């Protein structure tokens, strides 16, 4: 028996995490993500889990990584300024292949910016914000239901690929209330265990090592230093670094078809909107109000790793239009992968693109 609720995106995020078996939350209050921490504070102790309010966001993500290494599903949630503080330890999570989920309810930046207004301005920071080369997975819901679904899914992806996985939502979806169906249980896929005789950071063809959480009796040494398959620091050998970092990137990037999650509407269209998160809803509104086979829509639920092959599902595409709530971030990926003209349609200030704005853009660029 599933239940139907009318709830906020942030509340649905907490529900999705709980349904996925998340039993550790470390966080710090920050608008507009705080409702996630509040919901976890209410719910986790009753579910046999741990909620802890840390002293800052550096500590929040650190505690989450520590908890994740004990084998528990762990999450934190924040917004722009806190996300910036987390960056060093996000790199640590990538380097140590720690499965964990980081929610960013995006608000207007830079700096303190607009705490109560929506943005998608952290999409490149999410992908590239920590130093060095690495890859991550980022999901982008556009509704309350999808916030529930994708939060739960984020835990599976984090476990399967042993990579920090991001739910890149925003103030609009985080704070809006909609009907949501919460199933009694969701399917859960955990990490493959570390095989007997395998080294803790030794991977097979998929580039993903088996996971031996603390207490498994494998005496795993986890370090953010460049390390060999044993997990031992090896910081001066160029080949060791090359082998490790290329694997960290490849295990995600080479699986982008498996990770990809997107919707294609009107594949024969000449003008194609590419969206993620709430701007997709304005595009859908325009397509409903002005039905036109010449207008297509690619909506991404996974932005990172970027599924460039999805752009080519529109063989007749002449123009791509990319509305996002920033000054043009994911549009750079689109530009990189197609030969046709690409129109960035960045909007900042906190309000969603209106249908009229998209209609005007269509008229100007088709």
């Amino acid at each position, binding site marked *: 028996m599933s239940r139907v609720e*009318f709830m906020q995106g942030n509340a649905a995020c907490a529900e999705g995490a709980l349904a996925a078996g998340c039993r550790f939350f470390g966080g710090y209050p920050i608008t507009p993500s705080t409702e996630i921490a509040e919901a976890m504070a209410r719910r986790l102790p009753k579910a046999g889990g741990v909620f802890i309010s840390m002293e800052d966001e550096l500590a929040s993500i650190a505690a989450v990584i520590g908890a994740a290494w004990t084998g528990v599903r762990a999450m934190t949630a924040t917004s722009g300024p806190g996300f910036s503080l987390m960056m060093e330890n996000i790199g640590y999570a990538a380097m140590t292949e720690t499965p964990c989920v980081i929610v960013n309810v995006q608000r207007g930046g830079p700096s303190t910016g607009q705490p109560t207004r929506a943005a998608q301005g952290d999409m490149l920071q999410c992908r590239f914000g920590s130093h060095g080369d690495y890859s991550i997975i980022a999901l982008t819901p556009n509704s309350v239901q999808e916030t529930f679904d994708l939060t739960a899914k984020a835990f599976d992806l984090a476990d399967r690929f042993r990579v920090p996985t991001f739910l890149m939502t925003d103030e609009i979806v985080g704070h809006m209330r909609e009907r949501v169906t919460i199933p009694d249980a969701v399917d859960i896929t955990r990490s493959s265990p570390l095989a007997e005789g395998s080294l803790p950071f030794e991977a097979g063809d998929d580039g993903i090592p088996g996971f031996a959480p603390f207490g498994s009796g494998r005496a795993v040494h986890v370090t953010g230093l460049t390390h060999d398959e044993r997990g031992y620091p090896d910081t001066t050998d160029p080949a060791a670094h090359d082998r490790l970092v290329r694997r960290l990137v490849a295990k995600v990037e080479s699986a982008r078809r498996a990770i990809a999650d997107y919707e294609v509407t009107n594949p024969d269209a000449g003008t194609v909107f590419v969206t993620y998160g709430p701007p997709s809803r304005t595009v*859908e509104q325009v397509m409903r109000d002005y039905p036109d086979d010449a207008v297509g829509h690619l909506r991404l639920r996974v932005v990172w790793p970027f599924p460039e092959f999805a752009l080519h599902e529109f063989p007749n595409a002449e123009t791509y239009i990319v509305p996002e709530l920033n000054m043009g971030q994911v549009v750079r990926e689109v530009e990189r992968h197609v030969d046709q003209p690409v129109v960035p349609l960045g909007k900042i200030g906190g309000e969603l693109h209106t249908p009229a704005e998209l209609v005007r853009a269509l008229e100007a660029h088709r």
Partner: protein
Amino acid sequence: MRHEVRFSGYGGQGIILSAVILGRAAALYDGKHAVQTQVYGPEARGGASMGQVVIDDRPILYPEVADPDIYAIMSQQGFEKYGVRARPDAVMLLDTDLVRSRPGCRYYEIPATAEAKTVLGREIVANIVMIGALVTSTGIVSREAIERAVLDSVPKGTENLNMKALKRGFELGERVCNL
């Protein structure tokens, strides 16, 4: 048919809760679709508070309220900030004693706060009186749906008071419609 409903007043009146209750009634108990949003600043009390709901028979795509056709305004500042530009064919419910201005569109004066204070003895239920009046004057959701949504949303032990407030609102709403 898409309706956009906007509530405004000052922080502490339960403005956003009103929008949540209306959205809940539509989405959970009237078989419709609803999206509730709000705009808020740093003030927890005072200031101008605003909550809004889109209600539609079809799934709601664009989630924002652009140009409401229904308003419930419970403070002068709320009117000035969020009600003054109401379109001519909109309907606006005003708290008679808390809003001095009158809009260019059709409007109903609802003495929600006065009724809550004098008749019900608790000013805190003024927003529920307003919701009741909104439902009977506009028919935006059914009475049954709003009753269930109110009961879902109010603290235990206050159900009777809130039901009384809602019913009083129903009466006030019916009365202004029949004038």
